[in-house]
């Protein structure tokens, strides 16, 4: 008298499911292949120095991708992050220029707060007023970018106006490893914990996976949305400070268009735009893949004109393959359901 659990062990189907569940492995495999290829063309690729450089240059992308991942999981999108980076970077740089003695960590806090405020505005528009994320963030991207130009009055803040301590935020290293890498690792750990071991983290998935069920389980959707956009904003603000510190210069057009890179990293990492799914490991690999492309294309002497095309092609390819795999897996499931 047991309920027939149609869990028939069919090795072929299960392989596919396994592949789907650990799609990250495929990405990892791809990355390894890519690395080998690049290494054969230019032996300075897999040197300690280059790997550290690569990691340093990819750190900001990683941090932002984490935020974008949770936004995408809730079925949203945030196109304003490039503008938030510029705004927080510019304001922080101006703060530093005006008070050179200010504690660099305070700057980080300052930038994060600015970013969070931007995020809260977005979150309120989406969660409370009910605007579509793409429209709301598109509009705010314009507004934040315009504000950045207004507050800077077209001027830049240059390295000589920044205190040593501030530049060391992103330039310095600890145990021979750049601060940025430490920050990225820190956020990866925090997100890993947050997404997997806290109730709120799981609720983010729940809201994205099935908003109606979330509602009947008593999860407050608007609160989760607000939280998610605030986190994204806060991370963007933080990255704005890091960006400015890393390049020791703040400009009005900082990180223009960077949101697309971040979204691309997430999609490569298997985050579904339809919400509900996305893993930290995948996003990390997605960001690393883009980081490697950025690092390797100059090393390979790839014509700069091909870089856009290659990037677009890889993104499309990745999402299409992903969708085909998913389709096959779903088909397997429906068959199994019937069987």
């Amino acid at each position, binding site marked *: 008298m047991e309920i027939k659990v149609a869990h028939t062990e069919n090795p072929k189907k299960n392989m596919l499911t396994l592949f789907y569940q650990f799609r990250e492995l495929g990405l990892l495999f791809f990355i390894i292949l890519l690395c080998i290829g690049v290494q054969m063309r230019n032996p300075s690729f897999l040197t300690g120095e280059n790997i550290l450089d690569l990691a340093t240059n990819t750190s900001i992308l990683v941090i932002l991708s984490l935020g974008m991942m949770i936004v995408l999981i809730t079925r949203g999108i945030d196109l304003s992050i490039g503008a938030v980076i510029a705004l927080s970077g510019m304001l922080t740089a101006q703060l530093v220029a005006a008070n050179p003695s200010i504690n660099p960590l305070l700057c980080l806090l300052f930038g994060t707060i600015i970013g969070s405020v931007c995020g809260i505005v977005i979150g309120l528009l989406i969660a409370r007023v009910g605007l579509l994320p793409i429209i709301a963030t598109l509009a705010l991207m314009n507004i934040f970018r315009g504000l950045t130009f207004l507050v800077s009055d077209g001027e830049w803040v240059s390295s000589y106006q920044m205190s040593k301590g501030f530049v060391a935020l992103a330039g310095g290293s600890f145990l021979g490893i750049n601060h940025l890498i430490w920050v990225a690792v820190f956020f990866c750990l925090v997100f890993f914990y947050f997404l997997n071991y806290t109730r709120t983290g799981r609720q983010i998935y729940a809201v994205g996976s099935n908003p109606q069920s979330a509602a009947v389980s008593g999860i407050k959707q608007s609160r989760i949305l607000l939280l998610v956009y605030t986190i994204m904003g806060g991370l963007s603000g933080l990255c704005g400070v890091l960006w400015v510190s890393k390049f020791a210069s703040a400009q009005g057009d900082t990180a223009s268009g960077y949101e697309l890179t971040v979204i691309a990293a997430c999609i490569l990492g298997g985050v579904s735009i339809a919400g509900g799914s996305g893993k930290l490991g995948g996003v990390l690999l997605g960001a690393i893949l883009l980081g490697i492309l950025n690092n390797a294309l100059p090393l390979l002497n790839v014509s700069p004109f091909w870089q856009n*095309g290659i990037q677009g092609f890889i993104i499309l390819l990745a999402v299409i393959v992903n*969708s085909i795999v998913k389709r096959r897996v779903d088909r397997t499931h429906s068959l199994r359901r019937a069987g």
Partner: protein
Amino acid sequence: MEQEKQTYQPRTLETQLPFSWKRLFFQWEWMLLLILVAVLLFGSYVSPYFLNYPSLRDGTMVFLDKAIIVFPMAMIMIMRDIDISVGSTVALSSVVMASLYTTAGLPMEVAIVACLVTGAVCGLINGLLIVKFKELSAVIVTLGTMILYRGIAYIILEDQAAGGFPEWFGFFGWGYVFGIPFLLIVFAALAIVFGILMHQTTFGRKVFAIGNNPTASRFSGVRVDRIKVIVFMLAGLLAAITAIFLTSRMGSTRPNIATMYELDIIAMAALGGVSTAGGKGRILGVVIAVFIIGYLQYGLGLINMPSQLFLIIVGALLILSVAIPKLGSMIKRK
């Protein structure tokens, strides 16, 4: 049984609605018209150069080129999709046209046809990908093709400029017919064509049906996929027309033209009352919105307002235009 029978009494359905002032005036278009008048008044107030025929006429040439794409974009948004690759499509079609003329030495007429074909093919690819891979949303597909199309443009022209078109090609962007800019005439013609297409033909009706309920549309015999592909193709085609006008206005082209056009276009459509949740919108509103944004920008330009302020104004306008109806219904609910 007696009771039951009552429901079987022949019942008639009115086919004429009684006239209602409320229905006549309770329309987003009136609101837009009001805004447009306000913009015109504002323009003439702040600048002495604004409110006269040559100025208003030539002012349109500044913004109408990209506004051409707003029509198919409105259709796409009505179908609950979005196309962010149109700017790249403009660039790619323009680059294809220019390089066929300059490097391949083909006649300009052929190059123009090639431009239109390129745009349509770009749209077709978008449409097919969206229809064939339903799991991917239009955002993702067009995000990818946006990078890809521009990438191809870069590969073709390698950051060189291509130009030196024949004299007559300049007519598209700069010419007048009976004292009216050719661009304005084309825009008006397209507005009429799309107005009819959207509101007077079965095709438009089906587009609205898809936007309101894609499943029910399919079940009612609407060929949803085919219509989607056609509309995305139209977007590509009109992007190519924009490319012709833009290239004509610039006299030469580069792979980096028309960056961020999609943004302005989406803003125009949204302001024009195209519901981003799908299913609603009118060409008339979109046309008025184009002129609102265009003349606002033009007027602010005439008083030499810094361009970054304009970014803020368009952003705020976009948010307000989509938020006000929502806020209204939010208050009503309370």
